[in-house]
């Protein structure tokens, strides 16, 4: 009799799990918190494409709104970094002797790498940093890594335009291969997006790994030939194993920089192998990144 007292002991009766499932199915309800099929996930993604664009714009604005110079910093920052790198690595360590046009070589590598690494680091925070958004709005969660990469790409467009000016100013001839410059950047963006999706999922599953991402990015910066020519440096090692050169040159970070350089620098002609490897990496990361991210859809937001 006391079951309705201050501490009710009898809980409201409930359907069993099987009954509930049959009941929901009978009325055509949709289960939430489960992974959608790949096809419907892709359809959702397409349906929400306008939202992706609005969110990228929002991300972009909120990153550049808080200071007076705003978007100018997206150009100023890599330029200042470029000057510092030029003095330290180019002049002090004399790495500029390996390359004909070191200024263009360095700035193209640096600006591309800044975008590429930002995709990785912001991809790591794409889910964990957006928990409040996930808790208020429902949309395919893959938009979150997509949005940070999209916004990163857009905010780097002025820097990419500056690269054209630098190439002109340092005496590179304008050739048909310049038309491939945006294509190369898109290949890099695709690679970065794939990695961002991959990292976002991994960090969401094991958040401590977020601490490792900056370390990986830093290592990548040193092994990708941002400020030195891998070819020339490996050749300078007397007893380098044969696999060392290709390993360093064809890893994703290095080919990303190389294909962009090849479109603007006459000293580095377009090379089919490098492009094929770059496109291969881009396709590989895009595909695995998307699949890996999709596999855990329906668990994001649970912390």
């Amino acid at each position: 009799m006391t079951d309705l007292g201050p501490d009710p002991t009898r809980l409201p009766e409930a359907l069993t799990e099987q009954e509930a499932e049959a009941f929901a199915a009978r009325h055509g309800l949709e289960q939430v918190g489960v992974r959608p099929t790949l096809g419907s996930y892709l359809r959702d993604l397409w349906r929400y494409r306008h939202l992706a664009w609005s969110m990228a714009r929002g991300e972009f604005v909120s990153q550049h709104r808080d200071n007076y110079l705003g978007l100018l910093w997206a150009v100023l920052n890599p330029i200042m970094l470029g000057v510092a790198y030029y003095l330290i690595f180019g002049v002090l360590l004399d790495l500029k002797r390996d390359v004909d046009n070191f200024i263009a070589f360095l700035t193209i590598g640096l600006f591309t790498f800044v975008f590429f690494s930002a995709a990785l680091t912001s991809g790591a925070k794409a889910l964990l940093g957006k928990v409040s958004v996930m808790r208020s709005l429902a949309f395919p969660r893959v938009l979150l890594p997509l949005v940070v990469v999209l916004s990163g790409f857009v905010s780097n467009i002025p820097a990419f335009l500056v690269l054209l000016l630098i190439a002109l100013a340092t005496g590179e001839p304008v050739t048909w291969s310049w038309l491939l410059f945006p294509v190369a950047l898109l290949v890099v963006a695709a690679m970065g997006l794939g990695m961002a999706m991959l990292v976002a999922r991994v960090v969401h599953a094991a958040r401590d790994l977020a601490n490792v991402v900056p370390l990986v990015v830093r290592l990548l910066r040193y092994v990708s030939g941002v400020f030195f020519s891998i070819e020339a440096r490996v050749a300078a090692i007397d007893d380098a194993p044969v696999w060392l050169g290709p390993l360093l040159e064809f890893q994703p970070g290095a080919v990303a920089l190389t294909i962009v350089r090849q479109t603007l620098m006459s000293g580095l002609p377009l090379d089919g192998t490098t492009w094929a490897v770059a496109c291969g990496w881009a396709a590989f990361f895009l595909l695995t990144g998307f699949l890996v991210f999709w596999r855990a859809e329906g668990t994001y937001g649970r912390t």
Partner: protein
Amino acid sequence: MAAPDTDRAPAGTSDEGRTPSVVCSHVSITYRVYGVGREENDAEGSVRRLLSRSTRGVGVREVHAVRDVSFVAYRGESIGIVGRNGSGKSTLLRTIAGLVPPTSGSLWLGGKASLLGVNAVLMPQLTGRENIWIGAQALGLTPAQVRARFDDIVDFAEIGDFLDLPMASYSSGMGARLRFAISTAVTPDILVVDEALSTGDAHFRARAQERITQIREAAGTVFIVSHSDKTIKSMCTRALWIDEGRLLADGAPGPVNGLYARKYGRHRQVWRQRFEEAARIEEVEGPEAAARYLRRWERRTAP
């Protein structure tokens, strides 16, 4: 809905010609809190405590916010959720809105859910205009549809000149109005209102109430969390009482509020004594006498 103290079939075993919109089956939600370490144990020896202090900030604690909650909600119902602060109401609502997947158990929804809560921060650095675009597109509107409804949303929110200022500069009332206007821009099948009405002034509450009635009449389901008896009684056709993550009562608002008040209301001590007395009578004179004893107060809580 029958009063909770009569034996009734589990909700939904008979369809009664109604269409369910939410089937919640044995849903439990656990979330992890990071960096808080294990629970402190004062009984530990002082040496051991000293040793464990160095690792206190490390580790994860699990919080069982919702435990084994089951119910079925129908179209046209407006369901009030009562319970103390921290009893798991908001967590449950976020799951009902399809935003946080349940840790165990299953949830089925019939249609699009929209959450409206004080915590549902859109993006504070962005302007009201940008937030309207993002929020409305997340509800599945196309850009053309957003454009068509944009003025309605702004009118309802009454934010005037603040439209192009960041939401961080809004007063809490303005923010609540804007969120409400966005969340109801599309008539959702399931509207989840998490204490969002309490921040507004009387004028806003009146208009919000009209909007909620419209949604219910359009055969939607509305969930409302409120700490006000009056709100629950005037706006809801059914109430759920959640206590420490468990669903303790499910039924008409009057009786459920009565049960809740027995445990936490002004007369909680009186009620505790009465039920202790009833338990004593049951032991001595049998359940009949105890029921007779309790019937004396029945009319006052269950009109």
